[in-house]
């Protein structure tokens, strides 16, 4: 077995081996003097000249020489280099990080078993000095085992592991692997990525930088192209019929793989019971829509599911949703006393047409007591009404500051009556005529704002066709948020957060007089978005996506989730709450205040009961998989390998040597041969001492 030396310079001390040899040749003769009567005969005895240089006491010389050699070797710090050549990425203990993709696409066919076997092989190849790490990832990452040498524990971590419900994102897993590899003291570092390599999981901007010397290997997990039918989306169209609210689900199915059209049964389940069944013909690599008949929504937190038969990828075969009877949004529309009904005709009609949010519109002239009963969460629309002064105005301010929403439609008579410009931060100026070139137009919209997000996409609504003949100027609006401007740059829609509430000012009208906006298709959704945003309410989501987190202590988040009982009743989110996950396992949330995050990891229904409400209908949150994960488009694993290899920290001059030096130092430290050598040296010197003292003394003359 080849031997290396950590400090070979000490081997120069081997020259000291000549000392005992020289001593044995010379010192014995000089040190011992025997008086003798006469050398007369001794000098005459014939003998060979080299007898004077003969070494004597071979064993004693051997002991002394060997002791010096071993002492020098101990200082030189020897170590066995092993059978493999020392290379920078060669011999030495390894830190191996195995990244296992557990996104739900890995549940297709036999991919998961193949992946587990691949991981088991990687972990089984670990040497006695190697350390293994197992990281599972989908859109997040978790280190199941970290820097473990015990292969049994590594195998145990792999046992019982199942694919998750999340979608693929390589970034978090790679960053966690980077952290582990950077912290490792082992000279050899390896990253093994076991995945089906879906393209959508790789952005190329993961921001990973692997430490120097890291080797990257990919283990692609592929299976036969499975025929997959996924419930890609469910639309819930609401309407009212005979005073009752109904919902008509409509599902979109997508098929991948297979040949020729197939008949696919589609089932609608309500609270776990099949209520409707349809059959749809799906072409190969095609999509189709399935419409279900409208059905009434009787109770809150009604759980619905659209399901197709299980196939190669069963996790996208169902789409869950939660329905509750439509929530009403009280809207108080105030007009001028004596104003005609046409002032608010278009506005009222628009608010009366709604599917998801029911606007409970009350239109009346502003007068005494008009501000009574205003509560946060409601919306007040001042349609062509000056801001009230006196007690009414004060009440309106309090309403806004407490969380109410105020929409001021400037119009002919609208505007501030007192010092509301200071309160709002801008003054509603005089009307401005825009009669040139047949009126002004909307010049710029803030499509990132919730009011106009709906209109971002193509063919989602066009404001440019609207003509504005007159609008009011808004002076000093620098501190307010301008959501829309006319083509002359003057503000069209301005927002300001005041206290807990919001104030939006529309500088034109909504009665079709100063502009033709009510005649545009965008008018209805615009009014809905405007009023809804003013109320501060988020859009109620029928479902969440696996991997999202819900703060059950946040009333607004819970309202978004459709759990409006909490807000309406004002019940505190305290006490011991138990959440049941889709698998039926309890997830206990701690009592007390503060954020309590519920990780929506699995697809299905999470149910939650209020304390002391065992008989009532449990609250439900629907969770679905991210449909993008069903896209089978794969990424070439070599592309990831090359991309990750390019992130490996560049070795500075001498870094390979430093890595090699670390490797050699690590080998030497683990073997510590110098200790054994020193023990042997001590034993040799002890034996030499005993042997030297046993030599008989020479006779001397008296």
């Amino acid at each position, binding site marked *: 077995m080849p031997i290396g030396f950590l400090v070979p310079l000490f081997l120069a001390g081997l020259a000291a081996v000549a000392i005992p040899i020289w001593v044995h040749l010379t010192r014995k003769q000089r040190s011992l*003097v*025997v*008086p*003798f*009567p006469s050398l007369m005969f*001794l000098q005459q005895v014939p003998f060979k000249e080299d007898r004077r240089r003969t070494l004597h006491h071979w064993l004693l010389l051997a002991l002394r020489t060997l002791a010096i050699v071993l002492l020098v070797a101990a200082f030189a710090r020897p170590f066995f280099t092993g059978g493999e050549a020392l290379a920078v990425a060669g011999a030495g203990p390894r830190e191996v990080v195995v990244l296992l993709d557990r996104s739900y696409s890995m549940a297709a066919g036999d991919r998961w078993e193949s992946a587990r076997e691949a991981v088991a092989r990687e972990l089984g190849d670990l040497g006695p000095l190697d350390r293994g790490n197992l990281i599972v990832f989908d859109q997040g990452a978790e280190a199941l085992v970290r820097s473990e040498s015990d292969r049994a524990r590594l195998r145990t971590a792999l046992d019982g592991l199942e694919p998750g419900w999340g979608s693929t994102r390589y970034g978090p897993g790679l960053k966690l692997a980077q952290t582990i590899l950077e912290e490792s003291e082992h000279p050899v570092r390896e990253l093994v990525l076991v995945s089906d390599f879906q393209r959508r999981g790789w952005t190329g901007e993961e921001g990973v930088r692997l430490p120097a010397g890291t080797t990257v290997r990919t283990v692609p997990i592929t299976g036969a192209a499975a025929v997959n039918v996924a419930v890609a989306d469910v639309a819930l169209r609401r309407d009212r019929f005979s005073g009752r609210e109904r919902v008509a689900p409509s599902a979109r199915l997508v098929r991948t793989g297979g040949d020729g059209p197939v008949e696919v049964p589609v089932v609608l389940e309500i609270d776990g019971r099949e209520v409707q069944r349809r059959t749809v013909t799906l072409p190969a690599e095609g999509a189709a829509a399935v419409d279900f008949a409208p059905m009434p929504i009787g109770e809150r937190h009604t759980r619905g599911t659209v399901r197709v038969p299980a196939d190669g990828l069963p996790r996208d075969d169902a789409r869950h949703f939660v329905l509750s009877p439509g929530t009403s949004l009280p809207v108080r529309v105030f007009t001028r006393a004596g104003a005609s009904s046409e002032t608010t005709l278009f506005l009222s009609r628009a608010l009366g047409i709604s599917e998801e949010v029911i606007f409970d519109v009350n239109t009346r002239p502003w007068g005494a007591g008009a501000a009574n009963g205003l509560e946060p969460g409601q919306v007040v629309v001042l349609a062509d009404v000056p801001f009230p002064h006196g007690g009414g105005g004060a009440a309106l301010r309090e309403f806004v500051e407490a969380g109410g929403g105020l929409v001021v439609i400037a119009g002919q008579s609208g505007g501030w009556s007192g010092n509301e410009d200071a309160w709002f931060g801008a003054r509603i100026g005089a009307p401005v005529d825009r009669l040139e070139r047949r009126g002004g137009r909307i010049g710029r919209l803030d499509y990132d704002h919730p009011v106009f997000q709906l209109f971002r996409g193509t063919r989602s609504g066009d404001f440019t066709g609207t003509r504005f003949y007159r609008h009011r100027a808004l002076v000093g609006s620098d501190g307010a948020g301008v959501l829309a401007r006319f083509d002359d740059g003057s503000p069209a829609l301005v927002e300001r957060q005041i206290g807990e509430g919001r104030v939006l000012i529309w500088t034109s009208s909504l009665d079709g007089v100063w502009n033709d906006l009510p005649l545009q298709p965008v008018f209805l959704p615009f009014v809905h978005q405007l009023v809804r945003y003013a109320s501060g309410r988020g859009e109620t989501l029928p479902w969440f996506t696996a991997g999202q987190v819900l703060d059950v202590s946040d009333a607004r988040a819970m309202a978004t989730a459709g759990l409006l009982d909490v807000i309406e009743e004002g019940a505190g989110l305290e006490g011991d709450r138990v959440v049941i996950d889709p698998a039926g396992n309890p997830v206990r949330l701690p009592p007390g205040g503060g954020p309590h995050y519920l990780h929506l990891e699995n697809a299905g229904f999470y149910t939650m009961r209020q304390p002391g409400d065992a008989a009532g209908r449990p609250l439900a949150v629907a969770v679905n998989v991210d449909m993008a994960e069903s896209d089978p488009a794969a990424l070439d694993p070599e592309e990831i390998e090359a991309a990750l290899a390019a992130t490996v920290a560049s070795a500075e001059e001498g870094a390979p040597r430093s890595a090699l030096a670390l490797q050699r130092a690590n080998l030497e430290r683990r073997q510590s041969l110098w200790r054994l050598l020193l023990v042997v040296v001590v034993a040799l010197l002890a034996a030499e001492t005993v042997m030297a003292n046993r030599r008989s*003394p020479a*006779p001397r003359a008296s």
Partner: protein
Amino acid sequence: MTVHRTRAHTDTPGARFLDPVVLARIDNLDLLARTVVDGFLHGLHGSPYLGLSMEFAEHRAYMQGDDIRKIDWRLFARTDRHYVKQYEAETNANFAVLLDVSKSMSYGSGSVTKLDYARFLAAALAYFSHRQRDRVGLYAFDTELVEHVHPSVRHLDQVLHALERVVPGRPGTLAAPLFTVASTFHRRGILVLISDFYETPERIVEALRPLAGQRHDLIVFHVLDPAELEFPFDRPASFEDLETGERFPVVPDKLRDGYRQMMREHIAEVERRVLGQGAHYTLLDTSRPLDLALFRYLLSRQKAKTSRGAA
């Protein structure tokens, strides 16, 4: 090389008094000499040394103070009277010890150095000769005479004192001091030369020639330490010449056999050369008791007397 060895010397009656280690404990050289001689003579009848006898001359009446060991008990059994034996003794002989006190004589691998051994021997021989009514003297030398006591019947004490005084410290040679002795010692006598003879046999013979030419009775005692004879060293070391100070690196394992061979050859050659000069030669191992030395001395005197009688 043969070394005259006795049976275990402790088996010889009185032999324990002749052990040089034991003798080294006796501080008084006079007492030591008496102990050695009397012990030797007392155990003479039981000794394994053959060929040595003390000629009986006559009986005389026991007088108070005589050594009761000389009483002839057989005669008393026959006569009921106490008579002591008297032996024939040499009278008026000149006896001198020529003692090498060079530095090399200070060597000893045990507790007794060669010089100590030679001192014991010289003292014993002087005492014995004094008892024989000889005139005893001493000549100690290294490169020259360092001590000399002219032979005289009254010089025993001087001889013993001189023996105690001598200290080895200088290199030595034989030729010059022995020539000086020869020129000083005019009357024919008994000369006992005690040395380790670290010179070539040729130089040794040259040194003895003046003495041999004067027809003295020359008795040579070649004194060596057991380590000089056996070279028992095993550790490589620098061997330092005691007289010259020269050092020589030696690997004993490589030299031992050759050294022993050379030493044997040297001793044999010295013996041959000495005998060729008409002298008596005895190799003495300082680890052995003095009885051999005394035996050889007495034997040599007996032979000398016999040859003079025959002449």
